[in-house]
């Protein structure tokens, strides 16, 4: 059997080749380029040591992108989990049409993030924007939402959360359906209120679902790219830029490949370390009844 096991390892070959060539090797290349000054296409690459990293920590736009990335990551995660759980509780309760709600809330996930950004553009433009039309009914003056840094970041956060909340809903729904109803029956006999039941039965037993949802949402929204490109392209100025869009902006627009690579390396380690820490934190929290 042992020989068979060793033979089996040959099965890794195709997948490993693809991933080594197109993920591992580009990562090493990126790390190497991050130590150089290079415009991205020319023959001249100058080794400059850690200069790119030093200028990164002096670049206000880098910190702006980093701050936005954290806002997108944290706010989207919060919104998607709170509303995902609320939607799951609603859909899990028995009433006619709960299946329809589930179907429709999950549907926007099918639409590409870029396309969703452009669709939302119809809502947010100053000229004939649908949001302005709706707000006018309530007497709110029309405004150009996407020209304000605050609203640009706010709407990117809201649109991304709105589009992908269905994922959390589905995961929480599965979690809720795994909780034996006997617990609730026993609690009802003891006269436990709905809130207490939620707080002391539902929530603790949902921790595995919460863990999965928080990590997938956080990692997903820290990588946010598509909807930013189509809705604001990082603007106004650099004010809605995420790390992902800022990297590509530095590389393809500013032609600072070395600098873009340095931000890339930073982003890479930031997300890898964060996801590891989170996994460990949640692993300690799991409850068993």
């Amino acid at each position, binding site marked *: *059997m042992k020989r*068979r*096991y060793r033979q*089996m*390892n040959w*099965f890794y070959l*195709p*997948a*490993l080749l*693809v*991933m080594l060539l*197109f993920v591992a090797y*580009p*990562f090493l*290349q*990126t790390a190497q*380029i*991050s130590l150089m000054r290079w415009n991205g296409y020319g023959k001249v690459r100058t080794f400059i040591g850690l200069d790119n990293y030093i200028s990164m920590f002096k670049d206000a736009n880098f910190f702006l992108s980093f701050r936005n990335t954290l806002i997108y990551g944290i706010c989207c995660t919060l919104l998607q989990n709170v509303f995902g759980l609320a939607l799951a509780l*609603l859909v899990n309760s028995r009433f006619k*049409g*709960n299946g329809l*709600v589930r*179907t*429709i*809330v999950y*549907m926007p996930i*099918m*639409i*590409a993030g*870029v396309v969703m950004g*452009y*669709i939302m553009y*119809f*809502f947010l433009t100053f000229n*004939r924007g*649908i949001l302005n*039309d709706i707000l006018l009914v309530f007497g709110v003056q029309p405004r150009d939402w996407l020209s304000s840094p605050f609203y640009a970041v706010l709407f990117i956060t809201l649109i991304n959360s709105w589009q992908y909340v269905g*994922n959390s809903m*589905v*995961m929480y729904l*599965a979690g809720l359906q795994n909780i034996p109803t006997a617990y609730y029956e026993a609690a009802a006999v003891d006269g436990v209120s709905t809130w207490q039941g939620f707080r002391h039965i539902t929530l603790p037993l949902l921790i595995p679902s919460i863990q999965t949802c928080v*990590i*997938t949402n956080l990692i997903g929204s*820290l*990588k946010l*790219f*598509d909807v930013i490109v189509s809705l604001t392209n990082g603007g106004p100025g650099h004010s809605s830029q995420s790390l992902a869009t800022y990297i*590509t902006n530095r*590389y393809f627009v500013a032609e600072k*490949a070395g600098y*873009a*690579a340095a931000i*890339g390396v930073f*982003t*890479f380690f930031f*997300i*890898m370390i964060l*996801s590891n820490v*989170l996994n460990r934190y*949640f692993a300690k929290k799991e409850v068993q009844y």
Partner: protein
Amino acid sequence: MTQQVKISQKNNTFLRKNQWWKYALSLLIIVIYLLPIYAVIMMAFKSPQDLSSRLSMPKELYLGSFEKALDSGNLLNALKNTAIITIGVILIEVIAGCMAAYPLARNHAKFNKFVMNVVLSMMMVPALSIVVGMYSLLVSLHGISTYWGIILVTAAFGLPLSIFLYRNFITAIPESLDEAAAIDGASTLQTFFHVILPQLAPVTVSVIIMKGIGAWNEFAFSLYVLQKSKMYNITLTIKQFFSETSTDLNAAAAGALIAILPTIIVYLVLQKYFVQGTLDSAVKG
């Protein structure tokens, strides 16, 4: 017995009376979720001269925007490109994915645990963090604006999830089946092809659906890898519609509608597989 029936009926009416808020809330949610799609449909069927609110129904059905989208925008070609790319990505992720998953599920040596950790952490890699190395690699391999370039790049980032899904599924197949095949003299390859492979249909559906939608909607890499307009996929074509100032927004809406229809129809038909796929792909650390 009669008493019980009475009680449950009473319960029922009680519940119904108190459920109006669920219907109201559901209605609100449905409106919020359908509004953007509704707006796109309205705009697509309106003539550009119709300057009424974007939410109002068109006065007459106008199909010119669709004509314009299909003619000027290179849209049919983009659909073809996207289909080729999606099929290519799925083929690699299914074949290489289930192969790599087999030793991961069966072999528990140190090396395999190491590979598993690599696969799990690769699922977290932010794709654009390595765009500099990726792009310069593709330039030196002459992979810019080629099908194989975008297919391999997309597949490389999708493979970890596909391996993870197959590995979980194969772990649940009893190992005694492999052993029985080994006793009958089957080689490792034969065992894989005749014992494992025939059982993988359900998880393959999940992989095809989840990764297929991802590849169909791919944008971040396509934006840089597919530079010639005749190689554009759907998302790039839609971007082109919207960024060309000469194009009117109604034609762009028509194009967007054509782009999102296939995925929405597939979803409505195969809904339960999408839900299953979402649950299967949940990574637990």
